[in-house]
């Protein structure tokens, strides 16, 4: 036969061994993606770094002798790191332990970044894929709804939510998510429109696929690459939006804090104690940096053509 199989695949070192071991064992896109992801060192390092940061932020406070709201009445001013008083990273201008505040701020930023983005992701992808794939009136209705939502000012929307439902930590995640899904749905819709008329979608329909199964099996995996890149851009955006809201007094309430809020505080005192600005800034930028690398790695891993 002229089109004999190619037995070696130089770009994937494990491919041959796996092929022989598994032979006709079927692998899913996800298993393949994970395997490809493991080969990408920058993405793996970023993922590990993010996990370490998250674990430290959520578990670390148990081992810190001070809590984020406790004021060291003996100090009442910014002090440099002092091991005798167990302020390992010093205190802020009110005498609160920097390390404890940094970890607590990390919890908030991580949660905002991940939860709000997940909300945006789920709504955006569902709405976008439906609008793009079903088309016609459904598309018209959903996209005009998105237009209307775009026109509502973000601040106004969040203030109304806070007034109606009262101040709630989790409500903020939802509110941010509800705003961020709009762009996501537009992106997914655009991608879906280009996919909709591809022959493999017609083939899927000829093989007996219903609209739902085609969206889940064909549309979503194919838009995922773009979506993931957008997600990694959204996470930093959301984290910064949260700090902005906190600054206005609509987000987390003092004494609770977030990295964004810590940076805002630190910026006011950066000439006297640059430490209070640099520490949260380093944490935030490391996290955002890792998210970007991870996103890029995920995009590559989910695209079989790129191996």
């Amino acid at each position, binding site marked *: *036969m*002229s*089109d004999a*199989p*190619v037995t070696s*695949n130089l770009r994937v070192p494990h491919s041959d061994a796996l*092929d022989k071991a*598994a*032979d*006709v*064992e*079927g*692998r*899913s*896109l996800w298993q*393949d993606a994970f395997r490809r992801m493991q080969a990408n060192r920058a993405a793996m390092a970023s993922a590990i770094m993010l996990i370490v940061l998250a674990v430290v932020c959520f578990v670390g406070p148990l081992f810190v002798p001070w809590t984020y709201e406790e004021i060291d009445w003996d100090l009442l001013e910014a002090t440099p790191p002092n091991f005798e008083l167990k302020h390992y990273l010093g205190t802020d201008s009110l005498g609160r332990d920097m390390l404890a505040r940094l970890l607590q701020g990390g919890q908030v930023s991580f949660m905002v970044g991940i939860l709000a983005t997940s909300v945006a992701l789920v709504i955006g992808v569902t709405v976008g894929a439906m609008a793009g794939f079903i088309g016609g009136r459904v598309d018209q209705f959903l996209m005009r709804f998105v237009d209307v939502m775009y026109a509502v000012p973000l601040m106004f929307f969040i203030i109304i939510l806070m007034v109606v439902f009262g101040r709630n930590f989790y409500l903020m995640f939802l509110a941010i998510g509800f705003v961020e899904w709009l762009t996501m749905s537009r992106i997914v819709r655009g991608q879906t429109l280009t996919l909709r008329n*591809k*022959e*493999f979608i*017609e*083939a*899927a*329909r*000829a*093989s*007996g*696929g*219903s609209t739902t*199964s085609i969206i889940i*099996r*064909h549309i979503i*995996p*194919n838009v995922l690459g773009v979506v993931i890149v957008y997600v990694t851009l959204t996470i930093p955006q959301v984290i910064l939006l949260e700090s902005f809201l906190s600054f206005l007094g609509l987000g987390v309430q003092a004494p609770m804090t977030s990295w964004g809020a810590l940076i805002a505080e630190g910026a006011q005192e950066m000439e006297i104690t640059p430490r209070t600005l640099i520490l949260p800034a380093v944490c935030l930028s490391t996290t955002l940096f890792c998210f970007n690398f991870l996103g890029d790695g995920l995009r590559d891993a*989910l*695209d*079989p*053509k790129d191996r």
Partner: protein
Amino acid sequence: MSESFLQVRDLKVHFPVRTGGILIGQYSPLKAVDGVSFDLNPGETLGVVGESGCGKSTLGRAVLQLIGATDGTVSWLGTDLTSLDKKELIAARENLQIVFQDPLASLDPRMTAGDIIAEPLRNYRPAMTKAERRKMVAGMMERVGLLPRMINRYPHEFSGGQCQRIGIARAMILHPKLVVCDEPVSALDVSIQAQVVNLLMDLQRDLGLSLLFISHDLAIVRHISHRVLVLYLGRVMELADKASIYATPHHPYTQALLSAVPIPDPVKERAKERVLLTGDIPSPLYPPSGCVFRTRCPRATAICADEVPQLEQAGAGHDVACHHWNT
């Protein structure tokens, strides 16, 4: 001859095309397929030939109801497919499959070969276990000439011919009764074309399926078909048994098509008298009155502009739509 296997009667597919109007659009119908009728018998291959844009692919898709018909009926084993609702149509498609023209574009780039071939099974045999499915897929891959160990490869890692084999495996895995082949070989090079056509013929013999073979390559149609349907601007020009149409084409369009097929002998090729057609295929938006072929027909007379020629019998199993076929 079972009367009710596949009966297509007066099938019309018109697409609305915006032709003017500023705020409120004016739409004219583009008659991609305009009143096509034919029968297909079990185990038979009907070749559909014609120029680009004559409605071959639309016809194939309309038979499977991938494109809704504007008018007419497609009756499959006695039920009219055009009247079914979504669920019934999905159920009916178990026996109706399609092989596409572009092998790579018809395979989802994010799915492995195994998943692609297994997709119809997942839709129609949900009770099947993974192991059973894998076994069937491996068997089918072997049947179409692919190594089962390539099950985890992605479409872009295959050659065009291999991709087309995957497409064929996907269409055949449910053992359908009718497969529409929409120019399955026109994207492949000649040596692979022969392999794929022979594979289709083998599968047809083994599974007893009917093929609606759409192509613009008359040589391949001659090789694979039992009967041939010639389309021009969405209308049937001639429908006849293979032997009869290649030996004595009656319609001037068919004659022109056949005379354009090169003969692999330079002496004969040069001596051959060719029926040359002038001009381009008219726009299906504004088809000529009467016989749609009259603008390019060497035999056209006044009657051709006034009256639409009906299919008439020019011999046993040989129908032709021309006012002048016997002059």
